[in-house]
């Protein structure tokens, strides 16, 4: 087809226009991720301090840390999903990935494939999947110029939302344990997001 004809046809067809802002859509998807994880925490049994409506430090650290990761990765994913945004967001996305990597690597040596840590991490990964899928569906309507990095950020924010809900159950108290296993789960979810994003977010 000649380019002039294409231009004429394009201008006659109205451009697709997703309704609503992507920010609101992403926040709803993440909210849903938190709710799903919180429901599963309810099913598994809330922590004692949560049941007593007096969250202690361990719970607060988990929830606030997960919230910070979710917001940072979410902002990065949103900015990265449009062409021509500043490189600062790319750097932030990479930094948050590195941060999680560092947390996951806190304890040296290969992590044991069974035990409470592996159970926590695998639950977190499973719980972050619905949020990740929803976020990818939302981001797909946009135009990410680095699909893999955007997908990784989406995986990270989904892991954050899952961790907020799951923290209501998770009995872990030791900071090193939390950093390692939550970090590992976030990393797996980010990797999943990167692999999916490469295909799903390409346009």
């Amino acid at each position, binding site marked *: 087809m000649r380019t*002039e004809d294409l*231009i004429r046809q394009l201008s006659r067809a109205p451009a697709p226009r997703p309704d609503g802002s992507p920010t609101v859509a992403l926040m709803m998807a993440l909210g849903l991720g938190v709710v799903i994880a919180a429901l599963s925490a309810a099913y598994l049994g809330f922590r004692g301090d949560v049941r007593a409506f007096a969250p202690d430090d361990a719970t607060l650290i988990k929830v606030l840390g997960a919230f910070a990761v979710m917001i940072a990765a979410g902002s990065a994913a949103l900015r990265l999903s449009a062409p021509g945004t500043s490189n600062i967001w790319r750097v932030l996305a990479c930094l948050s990935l590195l941060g999680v990597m560092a947390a996951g690597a806190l304890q040296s040596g290969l992590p044991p494939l069974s035990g409470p840590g592996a159970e926590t991490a695998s639950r977190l990964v499973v719980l972050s999947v619905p949020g990740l899928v929803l976020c990818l569906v939302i981001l797909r309507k946009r135009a990410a110029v680095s699909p893999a990095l955007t997908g990784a950020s989406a995986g990270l924010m989904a892991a954050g939302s899952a961790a907020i809900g799951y923290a209501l159950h998770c009995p872990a108290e030791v900071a090193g344990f939390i950093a390692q296993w939550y970090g590992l789960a976030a990393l797996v979810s980010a990797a999943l997001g990167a692999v999916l994003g490469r295909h799903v977010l390409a346009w």
Partner: protein
Amino acid sequence: MDRETSWTSLMQAARSGDASACEKLLGEVAEALRPVVASRLAHLHCSETEAEDVLQEILIAIHCKGHTWDDSRPILPWIYAVTKYKILDAMRRSGRRRAVLSDIGIDELEDRMAAPATETVGPHELAQLLDHLPERQRGVVSALALKGDTVANVARDNGLREGAVRVAFHRGLKTLRKLAG
């Protein structure tokens, strides 16, 4: 008015459904980007047609992904980023294509090099060859392949069904191929 200001206002008008603004914007963008795309793809031995295909992909992306431009920000970086993404995408694809070519073994490559180069047919010779075709095939081939018309249009203009147009087109091409050797 500089490009930034004029394209910004054209894009905003296009967003509110102004088809002529959209056409003007895409036309100007195509004009501005054509040499850029061509020069970027030149060292990949892309033909002019392939470069034009990439340009068309960029225009489609600008149209379909226009909603990702935040109108409080300048539009040129947005257009450049779309262009860069599509050019890189095309490079990756052609890289893969060349990787496939490089899989060919050395013997086979020698065979291919030894074979006489197929001559390409210039537009003048093509016009002469077209004269050998029966009238219906000649009309269809020149409309579809040379003028770039659509099958639907050709069918309407000649009072044919679309299937008949396609058949005539393929028969015409087959004959041409035989004639050109």
